[in-house]
């Protein structure tokens, strides 16, 4: 399109047509070249304003002493200092590390194993695939509420097992301050591992069948074939899966609100719930903004090196 736009007017010049038609034609070419940019402009502007603009504003607010309403009285990095000495923030960030690591690792493990099992050309694969994938269709609020009931010691698993006769059975993680964060892992894994399975199943299906046959002839056992030959082909899939799971883990807010409400106390707080609580319920906008910037920094610290190494190795082929 661009080449035509630049070549044609010159041809017009050679044949020297009247200048009015040349102007009109130039106008048409100008429109043709700029139309895609014009159409894209509103969304680019919106993204710049709402994403990067607000990011910048949040950063500015994190340097002020804003409480209930934004103020522009700058106090340097005092809010960050307060944040880092706040016990609740330390609990929330530790929880994020525990939740994030377990959530990503367990989702990947379960997802990969399910995908490999489903890849053995079993019957009713389509139905089973759908069943595993369905939790992903639910909102985290629904998942959270459902698991809140299941894990509630007076209603759920604990009560059922006790009703069966095992009177001393205890499964009270939901109300145990030391274990509450692991209930988040259970619910999160239940929701997302089917999705990881779908990703890996698609990847496995793309692997050439004869590679597996060749490995069989070479004398490799089935686990070894997957570990040494097939899974290394799925690095790009692993990359996407980790990216998606990591962002789900970091922005987990609704799951915590619905399942534990951050409790007992603030034992299962995550940075996202911390940020919301401080900014909007406890009138500490300055500190909330500082915590938001810390989350952003955390995300960048993980994603940027990974992205860099992944893209570089892909260039090398």
């Amino acid at each position: 399109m661009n080449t035509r736009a630049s070549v044609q007017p010159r041809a017009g010049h050679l044949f020297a047509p009247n200048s009015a038609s040349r102007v009109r034609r130039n106008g048409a070419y100008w429109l043709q070249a700029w139309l895609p940019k014009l159409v894209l402009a509103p969304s680019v502007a919106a993204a710049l304003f709402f994403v990067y603009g607000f990011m910048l504003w949040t950063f500015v607010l994190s340097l002020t002493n804003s409480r209930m309403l934004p103020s522009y009285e700058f106090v340097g990095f005092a809010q960050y200092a307060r944040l880092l000495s706040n016990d609740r923030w330390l609990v929330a960030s530790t929880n994020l590390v525990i939740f994030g690591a377990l959530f990503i690792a367990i989702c990947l493990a379960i997802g990969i194993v399910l995908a490999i099992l489903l890849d053995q050309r079993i019957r009713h694969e389509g139905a089973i695939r759908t069943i595993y994938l369905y939790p992903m269709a639910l909102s985290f609020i629904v998942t959270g509420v459902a698991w809140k009931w299941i894990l509630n010691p007076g209603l759920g698993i604990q009560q059922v097992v006790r009703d069966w006769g095992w009177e001393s059975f205890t499964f009270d993680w939901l109300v145990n301050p030391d274990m509450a964060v692991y209930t988040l892992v259970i619910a999160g894994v239940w929701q997302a591992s089917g999705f990881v399975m779908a990703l890996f199943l698609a990847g496995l299906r793309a692997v050439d069948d004869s590679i597996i046959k060749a490995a069989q002839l070479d004398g490799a056992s089935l686990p070894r074939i997957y570990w040494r030959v097939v899974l290394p082909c799925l690095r790009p899939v692993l990359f996407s899966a980790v990216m998606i799971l990591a962002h789900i883990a970091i922005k987990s807010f609704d799951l915590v609100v619905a399942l534990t409400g951050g409790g007992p106390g603030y034992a299962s707080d995550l940075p996202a719930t911390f940020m919301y609580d401080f900014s909007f319920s406890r009138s500490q906008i300055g500190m909330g903004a500082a915590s938001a910037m810390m989350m952003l920094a955390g995300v960048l610290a993980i994603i940027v090196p990974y992205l860099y190494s992944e893209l570089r190795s892909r260039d090398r082929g």
Partner: protein
Amino acid sequence: MSALEIRNVRKDFGRTRVLREVSLSIDSGEFLILVGPSGCGKSTLMNAIAGLEPVTDGSILIGNEEVTWRTPAERDIAMVFQSYALYPSMTVRQNIAFGLEMRKVPKAEREATVERVAKLLQITPLLDRKPSQLSGGQRQRVAMGRAIARQPTVYLFDEPLSNLDAKLRVEMRTEIKKLHQTLGTTIVYVTHDQIEAMTLADRIAVMREGRLLQLGTPDEVYNDPVDMFVASFMGSPSMNFIPAQLVRDEHGISLAIGAASDPYRLPFPAARTTPDLDAWVGRRVVLGLRPEHISERTPWGEEDANTHPLTTEVTVAEPTGADILLRVRLGEDEVNARVSPKQNVTPGDRLPLQVDMARAVLFDPERETRIA
């Protein structure tokens, strides 16, 4: 010693019969080619030999050992795949060594084997590359290297050249032949390309619809086909099938071609007439003649008792460089002929040709089987 023996192997997929009672045996060091059109069961037979697909019935022996129910790894075979099937995440070195590693060969020995194989196939400079950085021909070499490294009893090649371009295919064909001659290995090779089959094989097995039609040397399969299918499958352009009537005249048995009122007569070689052939006198048969047996007249042709003159109209001429392929009229049909490029041919000309009946074959027009 027979390296591989297949006894009455059958394979059904549900109600579809893919292999029906196939039996064959290959000597150690022999190069066998399985050839046939797609869907003839040759790849299924190959997979059955490899152990990648269980057979429904029958038995398979490798090196005089029954292996019918063994896993592929326990069969002492190596396979080269059409898509090369190199492990994409490993270097060439790791690819070649993987089979040895799985068989717990010590590291030093593994490295020595990789070096030796790489030298043999001239891929030493490529050893540390990934498969994605190689060309098609190089990948093909690596795939062969992976098979050679293991030194199995039988090598299986599953259409190994069909993903290469025409020029490279001819080069690699020669290379495989050379490799077979230097290593003296036993090879089973599947292809649908009859030229590959003719050039490479010690023996050819022609398959169709799950049956083994003929097993013989390239010369036997080409010159002495068991039926019309084998005759038409081998050779390019394929054999001419000319409807004719078998008659007895002063020369013995002859074939009358074309209009009943004024037929063109071709005497059948007296040395090849059998008593069975007498039963066909007066009946319709199919005469099979290779294009190269209809050619320009030669001095020796006039003295040879089995060579007969034919002057006929040329309808199409296709020069190939090495020779000219012609469509010429014979009786009511057109047949393919092959003449020397020195001939000056224009379509529409009447050209003096000769027909060499020494290698002519006769078929039953209904059952398509060979008569003589």
